[in-house]
């Protein structure tokens, strides 16, 4: 083995890495926010009595969950222009990520909605809670608490998925890696650094999630 590792390529381009991290976070936050809206709409459709909404929602969830994200991304970026809808790499990336996250969060939010029992609302009424109090203390916060762990792990997966959009040359952390790799040929060093940065991002998100859980949902462990 006569290859010597040189991590100087990482230190010398630290600015690019930081830019990449910021772009990745921006991409993740934008697409997860839109995706969550889609997920709530999907869950409303999934739990509604209207068969049309229900069917659309099931089809959406199953089709997205059973096809690879890369194909969905290519469909939006390469496929849509041929029917006259041209998207920039960044737009295609946000749309594909949001639609993907929406499908997974539909199932999660649905579980949260279905987890609230009618008896609890009635108990709230019997205790003389006002409508808004019932919504806040009995419906919203416990439902959020129920879906919170699943939602956090889905968010982590979504952040890791953002790396795929480098394939349509949307600029984020992995794109920075490909760029540096092609200029310096220090592929192992560059990709190892980037992999570790992703681990760092994931840990950071998990730590924040843990603090939020302790602050807002600490009571959940007593409810079951």
């Amino acid at each position: 083995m006569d290859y010597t590792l040189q991590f100087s390529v990482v230190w010398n381009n630290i600015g690019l890495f930081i830019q990449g991290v910021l772009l990745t976070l921006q991409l993740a936050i934008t697409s997860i926010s839109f995706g969550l809206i889609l997920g709530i709409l999907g869950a409303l459709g999934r739990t509604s009595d209207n068969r049309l909404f229900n069917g659309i929602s099931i089809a959406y969830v199953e089709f997205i969950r059973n096809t690879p994200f890369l194909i969905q991304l290519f469909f939006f970026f390469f496929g849509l222009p041929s029917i006259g809808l041209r998207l920039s790499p960044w737009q295609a990336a946000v749309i594909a990520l949001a639609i993907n996250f929406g499908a997974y969060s539909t199932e999660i939010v649905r579980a949260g909605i279905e987890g609230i029992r009618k008896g609890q609302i009635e108990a709230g009424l019997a205790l003389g809670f006002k409508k808004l109090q019932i919504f806040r203390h009995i419906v919203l916060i416990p439902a959020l608490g129920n879906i919170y762990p699943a939602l956090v792990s889905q968010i982590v997966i979504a952040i890791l998925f953002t790396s795929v959009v480098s394939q349509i040359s949307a600029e984020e952390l992995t794109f920075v890696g490909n760029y540096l790799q092609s200029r310096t040929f220090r592929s192992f060093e560059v990709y190892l650094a980037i992999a570790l940065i992703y681990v760092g991002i994931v840990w950071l998100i998990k730590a924040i999630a843990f603090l939020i859980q302790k602050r807002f949902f600490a009571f959940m462990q007593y409810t079951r």
Partner: protein
Amino acid sequence: MQDFTLPQIFTNLLLATRWTIVLSAIAFVGGGFVGFLVMLMRISPNKFIRYPSMLYVEFFQGTPLLMQLFLTFFGLSVILDWNLSPWTAAAIALTTYSSAFLSDIWRGSVEAIPKGQWEASTALGLNYVRQLQRVILPQAVKMSIPPTVGFAVQVIKGTSLASVIGFVELTRSATAISNVTFQPFLIFTIAAIIYFCLCFPLSLLSKRLEHQFAYRT
């Protein structure tokens, strides 16, 4: 410049699907073997055996699969001075990826076995290996079947990323054909439908098994 007719496109994509299936099978079976060992390490009472396996799982679950493919394909070739083919690199990367997730799924099932089972089998004088073999694993395996089948779907979808390092499977050949025919909309739709036909039955099976086990226990 070649013109493809619709049946030709379809045949070509289906031919490429073979490699998607083969790669998925390798990754799943290989990942199963490695994952089983990692799971055994992960449940070990000895922390010097346990910690490395935790680190392993944390790394592969905390980095994008694409990055793992790059690290294997570009990184290993440089470091070990092997010239890895896309085939080998994809097989290695997907195997390690699957092993991390499978070991985590299986660890969950083992840890879900009530402590009383361990205590009872200790009381019966079984040693650690016998306990695992006769008491714990048979019960854990039953519990872990639905999520394991569900994970097979993730592996099949994951193989699409191997196209990025030049492994010719369904996604790669869809890209290539759409570059020639200029019909990306049609071709990626067909590719998506083929993936759906591979994954959806497994998803359904996983859900059905989950219900079955839920009622039985």
